[in-house]
């Protein structure tokens, strides 16, 4: 029951043009306002206004770039996914402890899950050691944390909808065809 209270945020109704703009920048946020305006058959001013509104409403949360750090020497990260069981607290449920864990910069994502454990955390660090230290010194010492199970990530095949290894991005078409 308590779970539902935590899925509180109301979804907002958007116009089809606003949704279309979101889809365009979700694919590539570097695209110019001018291009977006042409694509949705609107004015640049209107697109700017829409983007501002979507940013203000926190529907557009941020504009990150997906980088394959494993290709950069000396910048390879160790990533772990940690299943965490916690005791929910009266009145605030899982929120309090989740928000607390989320503030650690090592935590790159954190979700409340249904099933065998409660929180799913992704941790990024420079070494296994660093992650182990984080788990033993920071995470498991938090009051309501009952147990943790750490899984180290061995290889990334796909992240946020982007394939890391495939030939799908190659154009194999003939240069001119009827």
């Amino acid at each position, binding site marked *: 029951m308590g779970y539902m209270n935590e899925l509180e945020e109301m979804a907002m109704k958007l116009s089809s043009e606003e949704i279309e703009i979101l*889809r365009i920048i979700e694919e590539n946020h570097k695209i110019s306002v001018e*291009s977006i305006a*042409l694509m949705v058959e609107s004015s640049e001013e209107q697109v700017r206004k829409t983007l501002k509104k979507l940013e203000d409403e926190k529907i557009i949360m941020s504009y990150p770039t997906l980088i394959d750090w494993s290709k950069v020497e000396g910048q390879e990260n160790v990533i772990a996914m940690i299943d965490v069981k916690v005791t929910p607290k009266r009145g605030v449920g899982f929120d309090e402890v989740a928000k607390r864990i989320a503030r650690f910069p090592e935590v790159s994502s954190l979700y409340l899950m249904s099933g065998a454990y409660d929180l799913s955390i992704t941790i990024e660090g420079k070494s296994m050691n660093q992650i182990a230290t984080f788990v033993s010194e920071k995470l498991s010492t938090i009051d309501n944390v009952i147990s943790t199970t750490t899984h180290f990530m061995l290889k990334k095949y796909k992240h946020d909808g982007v394939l890391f290894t495939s030939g799908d991005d190659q154009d194999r*078409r003939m*240069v*001119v*065809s*009827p």
Partner: protein
Amino acid sequence: MMQDYTRYVSQTGKDLKPSGIRKFFDLAASMEGVISLGVGEPDFITPWNIREAAIVSLEQGYTSYTANAGLLELRQEISTYLEKRFGVEYDSNNQIIVTIGASQGLDLAFRAILNRGDEVLIVEPAFVSYGPLVSLAGGTPIPVSTSPANGFKVTPEQIEQAITEKTKAVLLCSPNNPTGSTLTKEELTEIAKIIKKHDLLVISDEIYAELSYDEVFTSFAAIEGMYERTILLNGFSKGFAMTGWRLGFVAAPKPLTEVMLKIHQYTTMCAPHMLQHGAVEALRNTYHEVEAMKRSYRRRRNYVVQTLNQMGLECHTPGGAFYVFPSIRSTGLSSEQFAEQLLLEEKVAVVPGNVFGESGEGYVRCSYATSMPQLQEALKRMQHFIESRKLVKN
């Protein structure tokens, strides 16, 4: 010793004109760094679920022939698809044939209906295969030119003017390659009156049906009184991004499918078994991906049409497919000159409009089935081409 083969080659083979696209392809293929807007196929790779279904089919050993008309399971899916999507009912048992692309469907249709000298009206600008296929089947292709003033949409009057006592059928392709123009239900209804009045058949190439952006696509077979007169061609190439699979289908009244099936079984036997399993999956579970691809094309269409118009290459907004057909008349160049010089100087490939028929002269076909960054770069180069040579006289 060099053998003289000309005495072996058939007259039909000799008479067949080489495709106008060929020359241009050879030139473009010999150059490096070309951005091509000359490609007549999607830039998407076939959705994975479809590819996977074909892989599974191979793994399970589906390597035999299928029924001549295609897997019954696939024909049933096609039947459901045509009914749900376009409101036309075809019996999967005897009204649908799975073909090697819509191209083979065209060949079957012409061979099934044409006697020597029968005329087929071909609305131009048109896909390059129609005329030659009519000729190969012993018929005579009669071009019907459309006008840019009408967005290259054929009018009933234009069709009627070309009708003679030898006319047997009209070939329609909407959304159209190369112009992208798309006929509305009302426009098709007007054409239907002429078809009925002159007791003709229509071969309706609906391969771009899934890619209609502004209106709900209307199949010609769905127009009142036209079901009995329509040979409907469609396939998986464009909407499902499956060009290289070579899978299409033809649907028609039973007496016509019976004849087409005879020809099909002697020439082709059947479409590849494992690929037909992929097509089943395409029709069952790809709706959302098809919609997403369509949205992506639509955006790019809007971008390209407005950008071309801004640079002085006038172009109408096509209702479907993934082509725009801008006029290059303002440059004072012919279609071929424009395309060739643009390719040599700016390394952008477009297809000269005249290869699609006489009424395409003064135009070029640009396909926007290319990534946005590539499109942006290509249009920048086109603008540079026009500006540096002061080609547009405003």
